[in-house]
């Protein structure tokens, strides 16, 4: 399905968006730590308490949506610590979505909302107008009953969830919470033959993208509707991976360009798949 042309364009676009991001974030690059984490000052442009209130109203355009959630008991560990400036659900916000939207616009005919994205809890009625949502650090996800019900309805009606930035024992929490959302939910490991890896770019190998921060091999797990592999994917989990991290720093050179490209390709494929399946 993919050809060489999109990759060339994609490379150019990456460079282009990187430079744009540098210009837009001003001194941001000076605040980036060697671990790829931004300091609070660099993210302080959107105070947490206002994040949801600043949502752009629905106007029919594709808008990136990030799920906000309360953290569980283990939130004091790496992923959940407030020392990174923001709670785990907001990791990589808003630069990841801004960069990703640039890539989406440049590589596809999608005309998304370009200034970051919207933030919703899963029990927010507004979420239903955005059928793709992204959840970061779901290892710390501890949804309330109403949030569980909201996400359950969202997914069963046709919503699609991208779970990212979790690893190790985080899976146990994510899997347990997803079983609250969809009782009996069984994630299966996906391989390169799945349609989601051929919806826009042809992903030849899932092993070509390593985790940005840990020495672990990413695994892509999918939850199909009715647990039937012949039906559409409802959730895709980038377990042991953090493509949002790649998106966020694609413009500052922390990660090799080809790895950032791979992370973008996954993101583009997820969106195109979700919009057609």
């Amino acid at each position, binding site marked *: 399905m993919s050809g060489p042309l999109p990759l060339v364009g994609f490379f150019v676009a990456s460079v282009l968006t990187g430079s744009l991001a540098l210009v837009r974030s001003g001194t941001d690059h000076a605040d980036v730590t060697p671990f790829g984490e931004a300091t609070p000052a660099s993210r302080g442009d959107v105070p947490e308490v206002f994040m949801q209130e600043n949502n752009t109203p629905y106007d*029919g355009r594709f808008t990136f949506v990030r799920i906000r959630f309360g953290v569980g008991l283990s939130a004091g560990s790496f992923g959940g610590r407030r020392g990174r400036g923001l709670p785990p659900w907001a990791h990589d916000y808003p630069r990841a979505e801004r960069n990703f939207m640039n890539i989406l616009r440049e590589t596809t*005919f999608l005309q998304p909302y370009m200034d970051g994205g919207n933030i919703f809890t899963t029990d927010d009625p507004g979420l239903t107008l955005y059928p793709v949502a992204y959840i970061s650090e779901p290892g710390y996800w501890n949804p309330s009953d109403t949030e569980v019900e909201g996400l359950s309805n969202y997914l069963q009606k046709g919503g699609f969830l991208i779970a990212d930035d979790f690893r190790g024992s985080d899976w146990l929490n994510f899997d347990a919470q997803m079983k609250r959302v969809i009782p009996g939910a069984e994630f299966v490991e996906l391989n390169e033959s799945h349609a989601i890896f051929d919806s826009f770019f042809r992903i030849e190998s899932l092993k070509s993208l390593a985790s940005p921060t840990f020495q672990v091999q990413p695994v892509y797990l999918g939850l199909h509707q009715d647990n039937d592999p012949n039906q559409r994917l409802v959730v895709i989990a980038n377990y042991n991976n953090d493509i949002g991290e790649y998106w966020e720093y694609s413009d500052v050179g922390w990660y090799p360009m080809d790895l950032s490209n791979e992370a973008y390709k996954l993101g583009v494929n997820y969106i195109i798949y*979700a919009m057609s399946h």
Partner: protein
Amino acid sequence: MDTIFEFLFKYRPILFQEGDFTFASTWPSLLVLGAVAAVTIPTLFTYGQARGDSRKGDRTVMAVIRLGLVAVLVFILFQPTLVLTSVVPQRNFVGILIDDSQSMRIPDEGGVSRADFIRTTFGAEGSELLTALSDKFALRFFRFSRDASRLNDMSELSYSGTATNLGNAMVRAQEELAGVPISGLVVVSDGADNSGEVLAESLLPLQAGGVPVYTIGLGEEELARDVQVSRVEMPRTVLVGTSLVVDVIVSHQGYSGRTVQLLVEDTGALLASEDVTFEGDGEPVVTRVRIHAEDAGPRVLRFRVAPQEGERVTENNVRDVLVDVVNDAEKILYFEGEPRWEVKFIRRAVSDDENLQVVVLQRTAESKFLRLDVDDADELAAGFPKTREELFRYRALILGSVEASFFTHDQLDMIADFVSQRGGGLLVLGGRNAFTQGGYQGTRLAEALPVFLDDELSTSAEPYYGELFVAPTRTGLTHPATQLGEDNSDAVEARWASLPPLTTLNPITRLKPGATGLLTGGPEQERDRQIVLAYHRYGRGKVIALPVQDSWIWQMHADISLEDQTHEVFWRQLLRWLTDGVPSQVAAQADRELVEPGQPVNLIVDVGDSAYVEVNDGNVVAMIRTPSGDTMTVPLDWDVEQDGHYEAGFPTTGPGLYEVSVNALRGADTIGAALTYVNVAPSDEEYFNASMRGATLRRVADQTGGIFYTPETVANLPEDISLTGAGVTLTEERDLWDMPILLILVLGLMAAEWGYRRKRGLI
């Protein structure tokens, strides 16, 4: 009125119409003038000279009265005469055509059937009418229903004909009597012609031959109390699982205000029922019945209303309709010009519908297409179809948000031809590159659309964005595509009112002439601001406009419950309607919906190639399977007058469903196949619209120079034929001087003068 006329003028009006007026007196004109003057001048002089108590006015009045009296007497003296042309007795023939159809058994007022009149008038010895006719003419009798034949004895009438063909009967009788002098034809019938033929054409040879037709109308022009299932508007073929809204027209006489139940049955099982409330007398009620076509195969659905108290004809309370419920998968191409949610949610809505196959071609980037649900690797491999053969294999096309400049000129023409020539369905969705925003103005696609693209808002340089609370139009309340599973109009309206708003980038407000709006939308308090769903016929197919960008909101919105099926139902119905009636390369049907046992069936097959260009050199063969399991093969011949049109007849024997499989070949290549059914069953058609058609019978008489009669006026028939009929004739003179009106005038004028004198005291 005629009786009074005849009393005053001695003869019936028709004699004055037909005859020439003259004076029989042979006195020379000068003598006449002299005589008139001799009477008039002294009269005027006498009144002018008279004096006494009279004034000038009195003398004038009396002079006028006296002159009037003189004029009447002079008129009488000149022997007024009517010169008539009448037929020579026993030298001319009259054909009497007697209706032998079932409707003659219908009992009319007083319980006397129409056939009773025939028995007593034409079948009984000593009938006055028959005797009078026999005295003047040589009579030849014919019976007719669907066909006409000579009648040698009245006992041959069985009143069992299941159709009436009036025109054919008259032509046949004229042919039989060719070569002998015909005075006229007498048609004894209720006039309920149901042959479907144009009566005026049958009258032409009669008019040309100068043969007047005298019609005797039997029965009441309006049945006093009757309920009739007049018509059922239903497609002949539907997809299995389709929810149909069937229009049933129920008529009545004499049951105003009554509510009856219309039942729909499939081999005895009740499918639906609907209450029908009758309004004014004779006003037909259009009732919409919702039916779900669940079981595949040919079904004979029965629509009936139970007999009502006081109804004399109950056979017309039932109507059987054949519908072929097919289990095909209708293949639809959905071409979307950009990634967007409609693709996902339309696919989801119809994913469980085995009868709809939506093939998606989605342009995700420049020259990059995503294909979904294609049959094989080659399908749409080169993007949007570039040839008619490639596009016309689909039965419907959905165009999403894709700019006009994407297509070549030929492709835009091809899309328009897809509808107008191939008969496919086209659904155009809204979006940032659709309608005016997609630059379609001036293209052939714009011509095919049911809406105008030149709205002020649409053509504005500023992008438009509007929220649409949707409401059904009056038509939309009952249209099959917009029912949302509700069972009456109020519920449909309430359901639409409760749906969350959609949005649009295409402010379309004007329908083209002939287009129909089904849904409108706008701000909550102004839901008719713009068009949301509209359609029209374009050539052989139909085009539907749905200028919204996010119908998926009816699936995802927080106000829509998880169990809600609104979005699924809307899209399934919309796409089923989009493909409804789309022709195939080979299309077969019988020329009539209902055929009687023993009647031949005329099979009509239309054949087109893969680009739907008519094929005239095809080898078209039908295989007929009768209800008893026998088979016969019938080759069809090309009708040289119509491209791609093949016809053949085949006989029927017993009642039941006849399965007709048609195969069309061109050389050794198969063009296509078609399957259809013919319902062969005894017909009750004679009982429908069974009142006497006075207008038809009057028209037949008027246009041929004959006269219309009822049983009450038919006694004049023999004399009328002899005066107005054709054939061998002679001239006859009849005196008018002894008309009672003249005596009345004389006495009246004398009494008037006397009365005037009395009043004025001049006696």
